[in-house]
């Protein structure tokens, strides 16, 4: 960034954003830093001041960032320690706990693939599921398949964790209750005296946070190897707490790993794998 050239020298240059595209570029850069939570320091301020002048937009933004970001440091309820552990297991626990806080009754379980018979890989599994999700799985019709999707990425400071989800197809939302129905107070039903029929409960029964537009999330996990066999072990371990899972077909949507050593007997395994209870 050339120094001195882009500093405004007279009133008109100050008024009409001197070198607008350059200033906008700098502002976008600072925006990205703000989004990612990177705080600027005095050196970058020097650079900007020398380039655009003291009263330019990038420098102003820079100063604002310096003022507000320390105040918002503690805004996130999921504060991470200054240096995130390097250990993948700890990171995975942190990540899964974070994601499962959306439902306070979630239970985080730690498994070992050693406990599953016929497991090829030997690794740890961090799995998160709540009783609501267990109920949803319990009521899932056995004909509809559910998918294991992933790996998705979640960043914890500069570390990245890959996680997988167990997802079922989204249920269509019940139609919103009509205004005339709500206006009609002639038939208030006492919901705790057994007067209510299941259709009336539509007004009262909430959809849980796990039922999203793109699908119903039934469980989350992160494994040590993120390999397909560990996911299979995960499903097998989930069957212990979700007996209905044994009846539901589970599809694995992971492609076979690139460059993996395959013996000649094996097929190309991009097709679905059904679990065997």
């Amino acid at each position, binding site marked *: 960034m050339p120094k001195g050239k882009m500093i405004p020298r007279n009133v008109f240059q100050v008024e009409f954003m001197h070198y607008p595209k350059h200033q906008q570029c700098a502002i976008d850069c600072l925006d990205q830093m703000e989004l990612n939570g990177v705080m600027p320091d005095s050196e970058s301020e020097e650079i900007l001041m020398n380039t655009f002048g003291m009263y330019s937009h990038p420098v102003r933004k820079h100063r604002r960032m310096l003022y507000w970001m320390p105040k918002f440091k503690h805004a996130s309820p999921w504060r991470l320690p200054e240096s995130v552990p390097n250990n993948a297991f700890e990171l995975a626990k942190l990540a899964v706990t974070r994601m499962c806080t959306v439902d306070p009754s979630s239970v985080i379980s730690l498994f070992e693939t050693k406990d599953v018979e016929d497991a090829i890989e030997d690794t740890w599994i961090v799995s998160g599921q709540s009783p609501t999700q267990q109920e949803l799985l319990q009521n899932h019709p056995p004909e509809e398949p559910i998918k294991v999707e992933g790996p998705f990425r979640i960043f914890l400071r500069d570390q990245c964790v890959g996680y997988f989800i167990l997802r079922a197809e989204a249920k269509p939302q019940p139609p919103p209750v009509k205004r005339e*129905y*709500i*206006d009609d*107070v002639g038939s*208030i039903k006492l919901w705790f005296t057994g007067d209510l029929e299941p259709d009336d409960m539509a007004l*009262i029964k909430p959809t849980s946070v796990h039922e999203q537009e793109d699908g119903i999330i039934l469980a989350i996990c992160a494994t040590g190897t993120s390999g397909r066999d560990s996911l299979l072990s995960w499903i097998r371990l989930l069957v212990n707490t979700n007996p209905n899972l044994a009846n539901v077909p589970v599809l694995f949507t992971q492609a076979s790993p690139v460059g993996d050593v395959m013996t000649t007997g094996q097929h190309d395994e991009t097709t679905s794998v059904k679990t065997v209870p």
Partner: protein
Amino acid sequence: MLRWQPVKFVLGHPSRGKVIFGHPGIGRAMLGHQESHIAALGVTRGFSTTTQDSCTSPQVQEARDDGPAQQPTTLKPTHQPFVKNLFLGKFDKKMLTFPEVLDRDQHELLHEMIAPIERFFIEKVDGAKIDKEASIPPETLQGLKELGLYGQQIPEEYGGLGLGATEYARIAEILALDGSIAVTLAAHQAIGLKGILITGNQEQKKKYLPRLACGEWTAAFCLTEPSSGSDAASIQSRATLSKDGKTWLLNGSKIWISNGGSADLLTVFAKTPEVQPNGEVKDKVTAFIVERGFGGVSSSTPEDKMGIRGSNTCEIHFENTPVPIENVLGEIGGGFKVAMNILNSGRFSMGSSGAGIMKKMIGWSMEHAVTRKQFGHHLSEFALIKEKFARMSVAVYAMESMAYITAGVLDSHKNADCSVEAAIVKVFSSESVWHWGSECLQILGGMGYMKPYPFERYLRDARVLLIFEGTNEILRLFIALSGLQHAGIELQSLIKKLRNPLMNPGFILGKSIERLRHQKDNPKLDLDLAGYIHPSLKLGADSLEYCVKRLQYSVEVVLARHGLKVAEPENQLELARLADCAIDIYGMTAVLSRASRSYCIGIRNSAHETHVGVWKMARRGEVISTTITTTPYHHHYHPYHHHYHPQPPSLPPSTSNKGRLRHVRMSNCVPWASRRVWYGRFPSGCSTDRMKTRVPLYLQFYLHIVLPSAHFRSRVKDSSTVVYKLIFATGCYCCF
């Protein structure tokens, strides 16, 4: 064993004497004869607190009378639900005349029955031992059986005492002296066998009631499960019909069942599959009468509890228990209504048992306060202590009044729907007992905290009152939603228009002009409640009228605001406030009616009652402290006790111990009022002989400025201002 003697003559005659309202000075004879003389015969009066569509029938038997006229029970008038109509602003003025259910002979009989029970409790019941060992000794239980207390409401033809609601409430007051015994008996008769009484057919009654009445068998009520306490519709116990269709097989487990360990007869609720008209199979709750002898019934060890430790509470498990189809109570699939009716019918007696507990504790604390000296003064001279006593006396008075007015209504009407009133009594009494019991402990100081003394045991026993028989939170919602449900039927079209203001501009304009007065917190008082009670209670009646009008307004506001969504979980705060208002209004009505009656018929201490009543009206009024040297408010006091002989507690003889003269000192909180008000004795009946200064001017001033308007305003204000803002936001001209 004391029993009712059939009364051989009929008091009054079928067409009632006229009750002349507004002339309460006229003696008792006129006021008394409303609908109560049906009670004259030795008619056994069961009662039913039913909702509109319950399938019960009043359990009133034909009298065993030798009198000439058979009094058919259908002469009892019907009763409109009082509190539900309050939500519409309709005030049933008959409630301002306190129901008199017992005539003189029945009254005396009742007191003859009570005396041995009290003696039994004082002499033979060792509460501390029951609490320590967490069990009631069998001799005590045997004594209770001999007194007939196991069959209080069972009709005489089945061997019970055949008591009505009022007598039952009175006895509950005494039984409350020991919490474990009270709960054991209540679990047996108020809920355990009540199902058979209300919903059972003749064979079931003939088969089971005699044994239950004499105490040979104990009953229990099995509804609660690990996963469903308040949510009774979600129970998971199941009953399946056997192949031959003659037995139901019961499977499931119930927890926290009182009398579970010793009960021989259980009223069990389980889900049964029912085929709907459209072919679907749904699970509905059904009630069964299960004998322990059927097999498959097992109970666990008794639970260790905070209070009522003598009562046996345990889990019960059913494993393929065979239940013959004759033992289904009511209809198959109608178990929920049965459960609700059972629970609704026993609730009101909690008011009188709460009053019993409180009176005992007030007696102890009073004794302590007048004897103990600190800083050279007796505790009773300190205003803080006086305030406590004053407020708790008011609460006890209200509890009693509410319980007995509800009992009176149940006794004197056919199929009266008192479910909301009973819930109100329960909520108010349980919370008052817990709060004021704690204050009694406070007065007793360190002594109140020590185990060797009985005080803390009473408080621990009283804690469960807020939890069982319907938690107070659920009951508040029940009170509010029942009222709103009832009101919603009539207000349906009004609310529809209110909720769509842009579509009905003319209507909204007219309505807002009507409501202008409500906006200024000055509703038009056109009910003339003061005309139905003694004139000295006029202030109270006016404030009651104000409260009723404001409740009606706030009901409209709440319904217009939320519509059908008023029942949703997030709107419970407003419902709870409406329920609190309804509770207060019912309390006020009961207190006014009782104070008016006792003043008119000249019961001793009725001036004090008037005082208490009017102060209760003010609700947040200044504390009126009374130094009670003789006993206007001892625990033997009872409104029905016409020949009341005061039993002074063991007090040191004090200055004005003349028996009738009481010395009332205004509290120091009233700085400009340091004069004393002397209350002379007053004759019975005649109101012309008034006392010199009944309600002093400054006191009236006080009551006027601290009306429950303050109480109400804080509750209704939020909703009205928000509605105001809403309407403004829609661009409509309005001031709601």
